[in-house]
């Protein structure tokens, strides 16, 4: 992606660099210390997952798409399961939907706390990084006790879920989220009142509501600029129509707003988890699922921790998917970085990039751009 490179002095930040944990190639045209334009190149972790899905049957692909991303693995698996169930005309029982929703919200907690730590680390605030990751261990332990693994939970099957929540586990979940809520209030206080951290986040990477809307940004990055877009509210899936979330918005549009919006979203997630844990529907966990799915195609959009996740699945009537297309939210948010770094110092660039919560391994599909 290039946006008009005219200047001569170009700084390449190559695939191996200390700023981010994942490989991408950036080129910043600078004048002195100020960035005037930017371009980016991805594709370093392309693994051919969409091609791999063509050679595997429906159940095998479920575990393949789970491994597109390590941080948001459960939402990929849930979206795929929901989309294939929609194609097959089967609906998972209500208890399974409730369990899926609790796991999705727990994953959102883990993902946003991970991001808060990484965002602070990019600013050099390693203390917040270490302390928020220590508290994140609470949610990782909860996930390990209920599903058996800390990442890649493999809790979904086509037609329902594998593991049930025992009453002791629900107790443990409630206690865990109580502790996390207390800690999140503390982190919210730190992020908004610490002088040095505010100097690096207030007013940096500002994006107005119109810009955010025009660039097609999604997720907490868009909501921090005042764009009202949240798939859980716009098009409820799972049990979000009975246990809804309220959209968290901010009108500031800068980096600090992104921190604040993400932490406030976690308060909403904790509230939904509590409601669900107190009102779990009874019933069985799975429903019979056919081996061959009838012909057809379907589209499903859900709200991953980073934004709007889009799945297109096409079946040709056999026991293998014909085409699985995944469009992850990080890809849409990247243009906001290319526009947002202009007129900022080069040293602010890692934080602006971290502000959209980039997930490069999610990104690498093949995309074709055509100039209109």
């Amino acid at each position, binding site marked *: 992606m290039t946006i008009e490179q005219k200047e001569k002095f170009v700084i390449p930040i190559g695939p191996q660099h200390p700023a981010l944990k994942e490989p991408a190639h950036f080129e910043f045209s600078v004048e002195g210390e100020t960035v005037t334009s930017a371009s980016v190149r991805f594709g370093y972790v392309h693994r051919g997952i969409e091609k791999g899905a063509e050679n*595997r*049957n429906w*159940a*095998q692909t*479920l*575990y*393949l798409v789970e*491994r597109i991303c390590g941080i948001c693995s459960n939402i990929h698996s849930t979206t795929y399961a929901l989309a294939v169930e929609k194609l097959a005309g089967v609906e998972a029982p209500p208890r399974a939907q409730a369990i899926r929703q609790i796991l999705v919200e727990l994953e959102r907690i883990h993902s946003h706390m991970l991001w808060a730590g990484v965002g602070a680390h990019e600013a050099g605030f390693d*203390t*917040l990084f270490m*302390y928020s990751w*220590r508290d994140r*261990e609470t949610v990782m332990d909860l996930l*390990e*006790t*209920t*599903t*058996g*693994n800390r990442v*890649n939970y*493999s809790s979904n*099957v086509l037609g329902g879920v*594998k*593991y049930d929540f025992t009453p002791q586990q629900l107790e443990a979940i409630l206690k865990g989220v109580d502790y996390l809520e207390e800690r999140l209030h*503390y982190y919210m*206080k*730190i992020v908004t*009142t*610490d*002088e*040095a*951290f*505010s100097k690096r986040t207030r007013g940096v990477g500002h994006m107005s509501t119109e810009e955010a809307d025009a660039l097609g940004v999604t997720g907490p990055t868009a909501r921090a600029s005042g764009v009202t877009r949240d798939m859980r509210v716009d098009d409820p899936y799972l049990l979000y129509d009975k246990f809804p979330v309220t959209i968290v918005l901010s009108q500031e549009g800068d980096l600090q707003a992104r921190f604040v919006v993400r932490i406030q979203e976690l308060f909403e997630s904790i509230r939904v988890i509590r409601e669900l844990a107190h009102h779990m529907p009874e019933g069985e966990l799975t429903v019979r699922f056919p081996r061959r799915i009838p012909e057809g195609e379907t589209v499903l959009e859900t709200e991953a921790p980073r934004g709007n996740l889009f799945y297109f699945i096409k079946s040709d009537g056999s026991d293998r998917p014909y085409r699985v297309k995944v469009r992850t939210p990080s890809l849409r948010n990247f243009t906001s970085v290319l526009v947002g770094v202009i007129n900022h110092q080069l040293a602010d660039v890692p934080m602006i990039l971290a502000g959209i919560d980039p997930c490069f391994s999610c990104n690498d599909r093949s995309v074709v751009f055509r100039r209109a």
Partner: protein
Amino acid sequence: MRIGAMLGELLRHIFRKPATVNYPFVQQPVPQRLRGILRYHPEKCTGCQLCMKDCPSNAIEILTVDKPNKRFIMRFHADRCTYCSQCVVNCRFNCLEMSNEEWERAALRREPFTVMYGREGDLKEFLKKTELEVPQLKL
């Protein structure tokens, strides 16, 4: 606005014990649902191969010793397994389970990762028949 907003918390933590666990010397209790290595109980196996069909990484092979008498053995590739437990869900006769005790399975060579499960007599018969094809016997 405060300078060093986390300082109070940091000073309080000087008097608390560290949050890290000294792993090889101190073991945390393992959750009951942990998905360690797969275990196979051949008593009820009918050789339907549903576990093989849905394995995302072809880690299971059900080998027939004697089909009419329902004697089967399993060759399990622990290095290919993704520990997803789809096979456990698929098996209708409860022949499979994932252990929560054996999960520290690092090894220095490839051989320990191919595990053969079955009744004693079945394994012996199978290995005798296919002596030339099973390389780990030639150590």
